[in-house]
């Protein structure tokens, strides 16, 4: 057992866990943040994507020890009170989800994509950059629409700041 200290959604947490614990299991099983999902055993589906020190990574492919001392944001950390993050709002408005299993990972990856590309985002780039996130329901069409819509809203929000 090792004590892991990290910041999750802005709150400092300290948890005693086995060294073999993956970050996703720390979030889900120890902190009850079950919005982050596990969709595969092979690091290929992206359902588990969270932000670690601002980068969108697969929390199923990171040991807790590697996450010690970092700042993690999960899907639960995006909304400000009742106000959804623009990416969450865009997924709702554009029917960017059906069963919703892939959605938390999609949203965390999508925010990272918008941050990296800013206003230069186009459909082909979104499709290419979402390669690490698999959806079995939507056929991706409305997901891509949601990301492009949110990119506009996020850039407007930045411009207003």
């Amino acid at each position, binding site marked *: 057992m090792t004590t892991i200290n990290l910041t999750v959604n802005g709150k400092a947490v300290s948890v005693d866990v086995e060294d073999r614990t*993956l970050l996703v299991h720390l979030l889900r099983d120890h902190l009850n943040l079950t919005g982050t999902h596990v969709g595969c055993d092979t690091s290929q589906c992206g359902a588990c994507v969270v932000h670690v020190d601002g980068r969108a990574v697969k929390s199923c492919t990171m040991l807790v020890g590697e996450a010690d001392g970092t700042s993690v944001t999960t899907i639960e950390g995006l909304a400000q009170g009742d106000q959804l993050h623009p990416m969450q709002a865009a997924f709702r408005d554009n029917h960017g989800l059906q069963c919703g299993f892939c959605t938390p990972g999609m949203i965390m990856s999508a925010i990272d994509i918008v941050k990296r590309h800013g206003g230069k985002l186009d459909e082909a780039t979104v499709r290419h950059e979402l390669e690490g996130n698999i959806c079995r329901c939507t056929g991706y069409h409305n997901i891509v629409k949601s990301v492009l819509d949110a990119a506009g809203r996020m850039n407007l929000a930045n411009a207003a700041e």
Partner: protein
Amino acid sequence: MYQTHYHRASSIDEAASLFAKGDDAKFLAGGQTLLPVMKQRLAAPSDVIDLAKIPALIGIEVTADRVVIKAATTHYDVATNAQVQKAIPALAALAGMIGDPAVRYRGTIGGSLANNDPAADYPAAVLALNATVKTNKREIAADDFFQGLFATALEDGEIITQVSFPVPAKAAYEKFRHPASRFALTGVFVAQSKAGDIRVAATGASASGVTRVAAIEQALKSNWSAAALDGVTISSDGLMSDIHGSADYRANLIKVMAQRAVAKAG
């Protein structure tokens, strides 16, 4: 995953001594290969020694003649580094084609080379650009480093510290990606050094891992152009045959990817 002990090393020497203390230790860099294998219980190291936060293993240095990438530098940092994009654009582009964005944020060049997956991308760049792999013990020439499927010249406990690439006159990489895994079904890196030497390496194709392709090197020596390869036939002997593609298909892909790469290199 089986039980293991995690250690975060703060220096190369500390990593080497932690490794020596474990019964069956393994180094961990980005974890994008080792952790999936441990999750499937195909590896069960007693100890994992994390190299990813050792300052001496992170960073990129570019001079007029060489691009030096420290071992724990991520694929993302190589792909987006403006100096690498300028000195060896093919190398930055290759790093940007590995896996998906989340994999590129964590995966490292040292991990990719130490693992030497037969379909990995970096080995093709290292071999075609005639790079030198430096470890905590010695320097290893590209031609000596890769020794077959998942096999390298590294000794037990040896740590890759950096990879030094000579800046070529021309180079390009073309990859026919497996659409699901995103690894190379076949990828070809072509390079012409400033002294005029031509080296071509193929990944994803040979059953013995990354290899140079003599027939293509020969043809490009007399005429550096995609058309020079029209008459070349690549033998399918020793190439992989699996559900994704037969050896003959891969032999043809080597030629087609080489032609596209030469056209791209200009």
